């Protein structure tokens, strides 16, 4: 099976080049078939991934370019994020099938390029190869927002590009220092390397600048609402679904294992920012008139559960953060698709222009309801598992932080239900909104798979947790020495409360 990762990076690239020489409909079909093939490859990858096998699988390494090598390999965490990417990609293409009518070949090429780079980010095992994939993603996303975006797209595309670039360049300097200090660019080796504590601090901050922007964490989240509002539907889907996860992935892959002491030192900072993000962005979401903006702010709040969970330094917190990442990838992507469905019909995202959609679009209302409930954290759906676990983890670290974070769930219910009520319930004064037709077959195809995955993750999260559990265990073992003491002292007889209990919690 070695070589499958290279194949998964190269295939979308080839398809992207091919798209450029095609007519509009040819490009659509090529993009769709390429992304479906990628999904098949992803499933093959998952089937062949040995749970409980070696930490790094499907490894390949060629010393190809100058200072850095073409080193690929995945662990369970990367596997799950790759699955998320290849799962969302065909849906993105379908969602743009009719919505994008100008310059289709370039559009499809940009998306396929994006897919190749996302896969690259998640499986790069060379420090600088990671950086290249991580940064190169800016180019297609900049073009997607700038060419096919809404009225204010230029501003949004600049803001997106420059914000993220400024965050990342400092990380590059830190990477160079690390590569020299440790005399290797191999990420698995670096994850075991012990950097001097004093250096860890500034290295952590340099990486933090990058991942906090990507995540995004308050107060550097302001690019996200703009980018989401202006991006075309599929652009928002991929941005919320996968690109935001790169920040969390970065924390997991770099900040925590490489700088454990600094992570512990700055855990308070991360908690503080996460608390502000949850409360503040939830309140901001409550007063939005633009649907996409509302969901964008809710993303910032959900991502705060990820950061708080990660810096809880325990298994529940980290596993919870991972599940929130995956769940948010599905649910927020689906919510953006739901917005896209009605935007395509009425060409406005203003909440007041809609109303009473449950009368004339019952299936749409049903899907929208499901994803609203998932976003709120209803038990049985994906987000609940993750948010619950990460709150448990945070509670171990600090009960006060957990208390504040919990208000996020309440506020989340408030703004999402408020949104749903205004869009779907009641009666509409707008005759055009009352006459909208229900979902087409193509829209069914985009929403139904995500709905199934959301229920699957909510009912039996073990399928998704199993591949990642060993990696989380390695990470917690690595962090054990530097984890700050929590304030919540549960009455336990000491040590035996790890795996079995977590499984139980996961299945609730």
């Amino acid at each position, binding site marked *: 099976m070695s070589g499958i990762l290279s194949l998964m990076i190269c295939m979308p690239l080839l398809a992207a080049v091919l798209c450029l020489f095609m007519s509009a409909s040819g490009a659509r079909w090529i993009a769709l078939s390429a992304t479906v093939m990628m999904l098949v490859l992803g499933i093959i990858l998952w089937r062949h991934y040995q749970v409980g096998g070696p930490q790094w699988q499907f490894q390949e390494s060629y010393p190809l*370019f100058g200072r850095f090598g073409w080193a690929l390999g995945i662990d369970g965490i990367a596997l799950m994020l790759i699955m998320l990417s290849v799962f969302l990609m065909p849906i993105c293409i379908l969602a743009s099938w009719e919505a994008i009518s100008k310059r289709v070949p*370039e559009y499809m090429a940009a998306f396929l390029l994006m897919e190749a780079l996302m896969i690259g980010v998640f499986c790069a095992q060379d420090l600088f190869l990671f950086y290249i994939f991580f*940064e190169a993603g800016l180019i297609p996303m*900049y073009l997607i927002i*700038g060419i096919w975006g809404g009225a204010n797209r230029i501003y949004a595309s*600049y803001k997106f590009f420059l914000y993220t670039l400024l965050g990342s360049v400092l990380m590059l300097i830190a990477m160079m220092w690390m590569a020299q200090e440790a005399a290797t660019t191999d990420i698995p080796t670096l994850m075991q390397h012990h950097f001097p504590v004093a250096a860890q601090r500034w290295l952590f901050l340099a990486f933090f600048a990058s991942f906090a922007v990507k995540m995004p964490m308050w107060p550097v989240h302001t690019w996200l609402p703009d980018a989401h509002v202006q991006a075309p539907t599929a652009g928002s889907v991929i941005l919320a679904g996968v690109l935001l996860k790169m920040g969390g992935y970065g924390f997991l892959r770099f900040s925590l294992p490489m700088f454990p002491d600094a992570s512990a030192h700055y855990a308070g900072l991360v908690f503080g920012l996460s608390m502000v993000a949850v409360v503040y962005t939830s309140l901001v979401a409550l007063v939005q008139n633009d649907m996409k903006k509302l969901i964008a702010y809710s993303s910032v709040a959900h991502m705060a559960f990820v950061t708080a969970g990660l810096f809880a330094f325990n298994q529940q917190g980290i596993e919870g953060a991972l599940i929130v990442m995956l769940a948010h990838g599905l649910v927020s992507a689906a919510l953006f698709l739901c917005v896209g469905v009605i935007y395509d019909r009425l060409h406005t995202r203003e909440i007041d222009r809609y109303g009473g959609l449950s009368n004339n679009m019952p299936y749409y209302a049903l899907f929208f309801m499901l994803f609203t409930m998932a976003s709120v954290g209803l038990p049985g759906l994906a987000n609940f598992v993750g948010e619950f676990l990460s709150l448990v983890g945070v509670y171990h670290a600090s009960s006060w932080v957990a208390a504040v974070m919990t208000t996020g769930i309440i506020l989340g219910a408030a703004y999402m239900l408020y949104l749903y009520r205004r869009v779907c319930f009641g009666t509409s004064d707008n005759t055009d909104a009352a006459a909208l037709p229900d979902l087409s077959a193509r829209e069914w195809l985009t929403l139904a798979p995500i709905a199934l995955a959301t229920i699957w993750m909510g009912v039996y999260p073990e399928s998704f947790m199993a591949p990642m559990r060993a990696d989380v265990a390695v990470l917690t073992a690595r962090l054990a020495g530097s984890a700050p003491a929590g304030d919540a002292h549960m009455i336990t007889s000491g040590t035996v409360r790890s795996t079995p209990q977590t499984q139980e919690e996961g299945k609730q």
Partner: protein
Amino acid sequence: MTFLQQLALTAPELILSTGAIVLMLVAAWAGDKATRPITILTVFLLFAAALSLNGPAGQGGSAFYGLYVADAFGAFAKIIVYVAAAVCVAVAPRWFEANDRLRAEYPVIILLAACGMGMMASATDFLTLYIGLELQSLAAYVLASFSQKDSRSAEAGLKYFVLGALASGILLYGISLLYGFTGTTHFGGVASAIHAGTSLGLIFGMVFVLAGLAFKIAAVPFHMWTPDVYEGAPTPVTMVFATAPKVAAVALLVRVSVVALGPATHQWQQIITFAALASIVLGAAGAIGQSNIKRLLAYSSINNIGFALIGLAAGTQAGVAAIMSYMAIYVAMTLGSFACVMQMRDAEGNPVETIASLSGLSRSRPGLAAAFAVFMFSLAGIPPLLGFYAKFLVFDAAVAAHLVPLAAIGIAASVIGAFYYLKVIKIIYFDEPAAPYAASANILVNGVIAVTALLVSPLGYLLLKPLALYAGAAAQALFG
């Protein structure tokens, strides 16, 4: 070493200078109708000079009592210079034919300039340095004012000449101070004198020499001439200015800094660090308001020189290898972007230089637009394009030399630069189409665009191994 053997070391300069004299006679005799054969011969001569580096001229050692050296460092710089000059000569006739008068002297002057640049790269004595520099500069003054139809061109030539003469004066004054305080003009002699002890006069001399050279590479604070000259000179000439002489001057600066002023590294490091950061910031900030694409590229070249100087500021062998690799990649990007500028002409065939005219280019000329975008992203240093690797090398060298704050500030300032490159891409891709450009089937110019775009695209990474090898050997030759 016999005199003949020593002459063999200077083979490229011999080929270029005798070739230039012969072609000058041909030009005088046959007039402008001989331009085409002269152009072709010039390209051949430049390639012959590059090939001759394969022999003793590539690494034969010192000649003429230490006035001149044929080493891997010089050879590396010369290959880039000759290839860049050849490309600039090859694409020029069509442009001059369409916009101005085609004149037979043009390739000959470039040959002379290339000869001077070769001397600069190989100089190990302040006298050879000065002669090479002046040969190149005088040729450049003529080239800047080459257009007879455009009064901006005459203005550019005059400006360049006056400011260039001032810089030469500063340089000469610095050299005389160094000579006065060390008693020698030989790089090695100066180095050992500095090693024995520095004095205020020596430091002054060093500052003057570096200031003169900073003018030639257009580093801040000696950059003011660049936008005006780049804008006024005919586009093929601007293409020359932005590539070959830059490489030669950077090579010269590196050799002077490392070989002659090596023992005073800590002193000049401060100067270079300042020039590097100031060039990055001013080059980026100055470019933002520009509406003329040539002025924008002028600021871009100031910005890029700043990044290259970070490699020199490191003051290490890796840093020198990085700055030379940077220049090689920079030349590829710049040749490509100027070739794109040469394709910018309105329906009547007149050249247009406003950035606004690029509006919506992606729809009228998708290929040209894509190439332009590749060069812009690459100049901005966005991975996976090759421009990223150039920046990567210099910053890596700076970090290795424990200059982390310098690297951090420099790379953060590169975000300012990204802004105006993005602006060009925005105009090309996001805006509504303006009047389309005239179609151009010029195989040479299109070929240059295609080849450089491929080099800059991620495919260029496949060439990094040989590049690292040669740049490493070049740096090794200096530190040896």
